C-alpha cells in the first residue's frame, strides 16, 4: 500500500524535556530531510543509522540535530521514516516543521502514523484499538484547543471568510449551473473585488497565525498591578537585567515594556504595563489596570502583582473578581514580603494560591517562574495542541492563499469560470479544514436563498 504524500509531525510533547523529535513518514521522507541536511548524503546511508549534523534552511542554520533513518519496510509505519532529534525549544521545532512543510511535506492528521502502520500491516488490531482511543482523545483535545486558541476576533474573521468564500463560489456556480436562468450574474469586476477581500482577510489570518504566533511571541504574560507595586523590579529580577526604569516614584514606567523570558524551553513574553493612576475612577485605580486593559485582554496569563503592605483583602478580591468576570487566567503575587511571615497568609485568608515574594531581594521569585511554566504547560494553553493546531491552520491558510492567488490570476486572464471553479474547490477544501467542511449544499443553499431559480 503506497501513500503518495509524506507526512510530518512532532513526536514528542514540546517544551518538556531537552529534546524534541520530529518524525516524517512517506515516499519522500528521506529526500526532504536530505535537502536540509548538507553535511551528508542521507540517500546513500543504510537503514537504522544515526547522523549528526546541522539542519539548514538555505543558509540559515535551524539547529544541530541527530537524524535517524528507517527505510521501508523496516520502520514504524512500514514506509521510509526519518526522525529528527532537535533541541527542546518549541520555537526551533516549529521552525523545523515549517521548513519541512515548505519542502513538500504535510502535517500528519491525528493518528495518521499509526493508521499507516496498521494499514501496512505493522500493527495488529489490539494495538490499533488502543491507539484509536488515543486518536479520539487527541482530536477532541486539539479541537478544544483550537477553539480556545481562535478566540473572539479570530473566529469572527474565520466565519466572515467562510461566508465570503461560499458567496464567491456560489456566484461562480450560479453562472455555470444556472446560466439559463433569468438572474443577474456577478460580473468579473464584482468577483475581483470579492477575491481581493478574501485575499486580504486570509493575509490577516496568516499573519496572526504565522509561525505559530504563540510560539514566536511566546506565552503572553501581562504584569498588572497598582503603581509602585514593583512590577518593573519583578521584571528585572526575572530577567536578571536592568531594563525597566525603576524608581520609588509611582508611575515611573511610562509605557508598556515587553521582554522575553525562557523558562525550561517555553518562551514567555512578559509585558510590564504602566500602573497608571486614574484620579477620577477609584474602582479602576484600585487594581491599576486602566490603560493595561488591552494588554490584559490579549494576554494568555495575567500576573497580578500587589504590595502586601498597602493592599487590603478587599482590594485583592476586587481584582480577582475583575479577572474572573473577564475569564482571565491569573497568578496572584504578593510583593515586598521581607521575610516568610504567616501574617500575610492570615491577611488574605479567603484567597488561596498567593505567591509571596520579594522582587527586590529576589526572594521566592523562582516560584513565579515555576507557576508560569505550570500554567502554560498544564493549563488551557496546552503547548502541544497550540503548536499543532496552529501549524495545521497555518498550512491550510497558506494553501488557501495559493488557491486564492490562482483564482485571482484566472479571473484576470479571463479563464472560463468552470476552470476557475477548480481552484475555488481547492480553496473551499482548505478553509474547510479549519472551519469544517464546506459542501455543495452550502453553495446551493446560498443560491436558492438569494436567486429566484427554476422554471
Amino acid at each position, binding site marked *: 500500500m503506497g501513500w503518495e504524500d509524506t507526512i510530518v509531525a512532532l513526536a514528542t510533547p514540546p517544551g518538556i524535556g531537552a529534546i524534541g523529535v520530529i518524525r516524517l513518514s512517506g515516499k519522500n521522507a528521506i529526500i526532504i530531510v536530505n535537502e536540509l541536511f548538507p553535511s551528508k548524503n542521507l540517500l546513500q546511508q543504510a537503514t537504522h543509522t544515526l547522523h549528526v549534523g546541522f539542519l539548514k534552511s538555505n543558509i540559515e542554520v535551524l539547529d544541530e540535530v541527530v537524524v535517524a533513518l528507517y527505510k521501508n519496510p523496516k520502520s514504524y509505519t512500514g514506509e521510509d521514516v526519518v526522525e529528527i532529534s532537535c533541541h527542546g525549544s518549541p520555537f526551533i521545532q516549529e521552525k523545523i516543521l515549517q521548513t519541512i512543510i515548505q519542502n513538500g511535506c504535510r502535517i500528519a492528521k491525528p493518528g495518521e502514523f499509526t493508521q499507516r502502520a496498521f494499514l501496512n500491516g505493522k500493527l495488529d488490531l489490539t494495538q*490499533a484499538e488502543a491507539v484509536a482511543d488515543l486518536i479520539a*482523545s487527541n482530536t477532541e483535545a486539539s479541537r478544544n484547543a483550537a477553539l480556545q486558541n481562535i478566540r473572539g476576533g479570530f473566529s469572527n474573521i474565520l466565519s466572515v471568510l467562510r461566508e465570503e468564500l461560499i458567496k464567491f463560489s456560489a456566484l461562480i456556480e450560479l453562472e*455555470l449551473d444556472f446560466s439559463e436562468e433569468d438572474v443577474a450574474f456577478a460580473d468579473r469586476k464584482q468577483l475581483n473585488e470579492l477575491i481581493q477581500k478574501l485575499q486580504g482577510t486570509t493575509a490577516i489570518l496568516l499573519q496572526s497565525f504565522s509561525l505559530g504566533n504563540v510560539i514566536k511571541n511566546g506565552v503572553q504574560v501581562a504584569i498588572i498591578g497598582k503603581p509602585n507595586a514593583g512590577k518593573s523590579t519583578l521584571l528585572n529580577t526575572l530577567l536578571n537585567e536592568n531594563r525597566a526604569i525603576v524608581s520609588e516614584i509611582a508611575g515611573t514606567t511610562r509605557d508598556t515594556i515587553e521582554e522575553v523570558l525562557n523558562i525550561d524551553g517555553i518562551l514567555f513574553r512578559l509585558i510590564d504595563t504602566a500602573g497608571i493612576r486614574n484620579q477620577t475612577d477609584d474602582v479602576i485605580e484600585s487594581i491599576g489596570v486602566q490603560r493595561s486593559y488591552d494588554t490584559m485582554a490579549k494576554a494568555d496569563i495575567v500576573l497580578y502583582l500587589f504590595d502586601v503592605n498597602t493592599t487590603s483583602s478587599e482590594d485583592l478580591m476586587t481584582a480577582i473578581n475583575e479577572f474572573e468576570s473577564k475569564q482571565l487566567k491569573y497568578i496572584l503575587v504578593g510583593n515586598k514580603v521581607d521575610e516568610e511571615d504567616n501574617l500575610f497568609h492570615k491577611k488574605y485568608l479567603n484567597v488561596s494560591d498567593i505567591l509571596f515574594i520579594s522582587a527586590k531581594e529576589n526572594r521566592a521569585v523562582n516560584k513565579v517562574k515555576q507557576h508560569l511554566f505550570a500554567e502554560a504547560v498544564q493549563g488551557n494553553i496546552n503547548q502541544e495542541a497550540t503548536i499543532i493546531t496552529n501549524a495545521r491552520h497555518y498550512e491550510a491558510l497558506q494553501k488557501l492563499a495559493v488557491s486564492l492567488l490562482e483564482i485571482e490570476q484566472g479571473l484576470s486572464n479571463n479563464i472560463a469560470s468552470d*476552470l476557475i*471553479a477548480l481552484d475555488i474547490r481547492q480553496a473551499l477544501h482548505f478553509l474547510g479544514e479549519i472551519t469544517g467542511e464546506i459542501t455543495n449544499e452550502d453553495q446551493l443553499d446560498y443560491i*436558492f436563498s438569494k436567486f429566484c431559480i427554476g422554471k
Partner: protein
Amino acid sequence: MFQEYDVIVVGAGHAGCEAAASAANLGSTVLLITMNMQTIAQMSCNPAMGGIAKGQIVREIDALGGYSGIVTDKSMIQFRMLNRSKGPAMWSPRAQSDRMLFATTWREMLEQTERVDFYQDMVQSIIIKNDKACGVVTGMGHRIHSKSVVVTSGTFLNGVIHIGEKRLGGGRISEKAATGITEQLVELGFESDRLKTGTPPRVDSRSLDYSKMEEQKGDDEIVGFSYLPVEKIKASQQRSCHITYTNSEVHEMLKTGFDRSPMYQGRIEGVGPRYCPSIEDKINRFAERERHQLFVEPEGWNTVEIYVNGFSTSLPEDVQNQALRMVPGFEKCKIFRPGYAIEYDFFPPTQLTYTLETKLISNLFFAGQINGTTGYEEAACQGLMAGINAHQKAANLSPFVLKRNEAYIGVLIDDLISKGTDEPYRMFTSRAEYRTLLRQDNADLRLTELSYRLGLASQERMEMVKIKNDSVSTLKAIFASFSIEPQEINPYFQEIDSALVTEKQKAAKLLLRPNVTLSTLLQYVPRLANALPDVPFDILEQAEIQMKYERYIEKEEELVQRMSQLENMIIPNAFDYDKVTAISNEALQKFKKIKPQTLGQASRISGVNPSDVQILMVFMGR
C-alpha cells in the same frame, strides 16, 4: 399464463424503459409491466431532454448503450448546446422533443428489442421469499415470477393531484394512482415519505400572439446526444421556442387565488424541489421581482399544444386562466389542460446499495422518482443501472458500479445512497467534484469500454471509441511536434492586441494560451491544416479539449488519485460499528444506518468528520 422471467420491470417511464432495455440487451428475459400501454415513455413534464448536467447524463446513458440519447435524437424539434461560452466541461446538450414522437420512438425501440415482453396491469405487491424478491402480484390477480424485480413507480405510488381546492387521486392527470406496494414495503420495515412536484398549464398555440415574445432559435449546428450516427433533423427544420415574462398584474391576480391554494392551506405535505418552484412560490419568496421568465415550448411537430415552462402552479383553474391572460402574448390564451401539483411516495434512497438494490430485500431494485430524484435524465440513468444490476444479480454476475470520477451517474447514485435527499434530487454540475473529467464530449471515452466488457455496449460503439482514441492520439502527436513561426501567428496576436511571440513554438503550446483556439491556428497557419489527417470535427474538437485543458484535467486526475485510496478500502458488510468506541455518536448512527461500502463513501456522509473516518480506518478489517 406467464413464464418465469429473469427481470420484471414495474413501470414504463424513463427509468423503466431503460431498465427493460438494458436487462434484455444483456440477455435477460424481461417483462415490462405498465398500467397503460398508451403511455410508455411519457414526458410527464416539459417536452425536453438534457440541459446543464442533465445533458451530460444523457450522453453517459448513450455511451453505456442506453436508448435515451437515440430516442431524443430521433424525436427532437430543436437542439441547443448550452454554456458554449464556458469551458468544455460546462457544454450541455439540450433538446426540445416532440412529446408523442418521443414516446412512440421509445416504444418502437423496446418492441424491437429481443426478450422484452409487455403486459398492461397494475402491480400490487412484490412476491418475497426469505427476504428475496421473486416476482410480482398484479391488480388482476396474476402471480408472475422472476429472479429480479425493478420498481420504477414515478409519481404513481399513492399519487394525489391538487388543483386549487380539488384533490384527486392519480399518478398523472386523468391516470389512476397505484396502491399496495408502499403499504407492503413499509410493513416489511422500509421507510417511506412524501415528495411533491408540479407542472404548468398546456395551452393552445393558435391563441397566442408571438409578436409580443422573444424568439429563441435552435443552434446552427445540431450535435445531438448519441455517439452513434443517428439521423437527425436539419438545423433549418428546427422549431423555435419563445420567451415572455410575467408582470405585477399577473402576480396580483395569482395572489387572489392563494387562499384556495393547496400549498398555502397546508394540504400538501410533500416537499417540492427548490429549483423547480411553482409560480406562486416564486412571487411569494421573491416578492421584489417584478417579472419572471416564461418559456413557451411547442410540444411537437403536429400539434398546437404548448407547454408554458416556468408557470408551474396548483392554483385554481380560473386563477390560472385569468393570470395567464395578463402575460404579454397570452391575452387570448386558451388552456388545454391546467397546471397541477402532485404528491407521491418515495423511499429514502439511503435504503439502497450502490447497485440500487434494496438493503432489506435482495433482488429488489428501485429506480427513478421512487428514490427521491426528479428529472427524466436522472430517472433514465438509474433505470439503466438498475436494469444492468438486476440482470447481473439474476445471472449471478458481479455488480456494475460507476465511481464519482467516472460519471455523473456515479455521482448521482453515490449522493443518493450516502447522503439521501429531503427534496427531489436534481443533478447539478457542482455536485461533481471532478467536473472537468466528466464532460459531454468524452462520455464514450469514459464509459463505452466498461459497458462493452459487460456485454451491453455494441461492437459498433466500441469500434467508434477506438477510432476516436487513435485519431485523437495522432492529432495530439502532430500538435506536440509541429512548430509555428512567430510571423505565422503574430498577425493574429496583433489583431487581438495580445503579447506577440518572439520565437517559434509548438502548436500544442500555443494552444494553451487562453485566446488561442484550434480554429485560430488552422486559420492563421494553413501549413498546420495541411499536416492534419482528414478527421471528423468532433475528433478535432476532442483533441483540442484534451490539449487545451490538459493542466486542469491533470489537476483533477491527481485529486482522483488522492481520493482513490479511500475509495478502494472496502468496509466489510458485517462490520460491527458498535465496537468502534472512539467514534462520534452522530457518525456511529449514520454509519449503522447507511452502512457505507467504502471508506470514501463513509467520508461523504453528512455529519461525519474526517477523524471518524480515520478511526474507522484503524478499526477496519475486523
